[in-house]
């Protein structure tokens, strides 16, 4: 009797936990990487090809590193994800956005930058990775607090 009950509870527990685990997907390997190259490896996007079809709109000079607006869109057909890496931040990978059917490969966000740095955007399309880079100069860093 007890065995049946335990099996049943375990099964219910698994059912409850599964969607939660799926929602909480977090790529620790990529986000915990201290270099852009390691972060790209963690994402499975090592050695992306340069592309002019990734558009990065951002200020050339950010007065306040705590809030740097970056707008990204990809004109590469079939873009499924966009990752943003701030090369000189302690942990370069800042965000990874996956676009499902119905979404346009576009995102605008505000990021913190510790110092002047290249911002690298890596887009995945058809299993291949493409990258574009843009330098943003920061006059006051935004990682201290």
């Amino acid at each position, binding site marked *: 009797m007890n065995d049946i009950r335990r099996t049943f509870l375990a099964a219910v527990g698994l059912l409850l936990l599964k969607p939660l685990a799926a929602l909480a997907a977090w790529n620790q390997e990529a986000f915990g990487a201290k270099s852009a190259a390691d972060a790209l490896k963690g994402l499975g996007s090592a050695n992306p090809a340069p592309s002019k079809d990734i558009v990065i709109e951002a200020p050339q000079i950010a007065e306040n590193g705590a809030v740097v607006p970056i707008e990204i869109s990809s004109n590469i057909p079939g873009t499924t994800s966009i990752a943003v890496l701030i090369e000189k931040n302690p*942990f370069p990978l*800042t965000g990874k956005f996956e676009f499902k059917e119905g*979404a346009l490969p576009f*995102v*605008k966000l505000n990021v*913190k930058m510790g110092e002047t740095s290249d911002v690298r955007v890596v887009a995945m399309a058809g299993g291949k990775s493409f990258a574009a880079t843009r330098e943003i100069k920061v006059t006051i860093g935004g990682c201290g607090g």
Partner: protein
Amino acid sequence: MAGPMKMRATLAGGNTAAVHTEIRVLMTHPMTTAQMKEGLHHIQNVVVKQNGKVVVEAEISQAVSRNPVFSFRLKGGAKGDKIEVSWLDNKGESNKIETAVA
């Protein structure tokens, strides 16, 4: 502490550009880094749904600014479409907001 969210979803484009849904969402969250005295506390996951279907899934780091604001775009869309945005942070706190496209 994590607080309320705000969101606007509108139809954009028309004459010159293709019609799309423009979503702008604000999350109240400290987004503190490990170096700050408050310690690491940041949103990790953001999910955007259109009429109950997941359209954007994001993972974000501590390097996103305090009280994050994101814009997303969806193909096409219609007035009254239900847009839901939810987030989950590294301490298990979460929040969500739903609005109809205007």
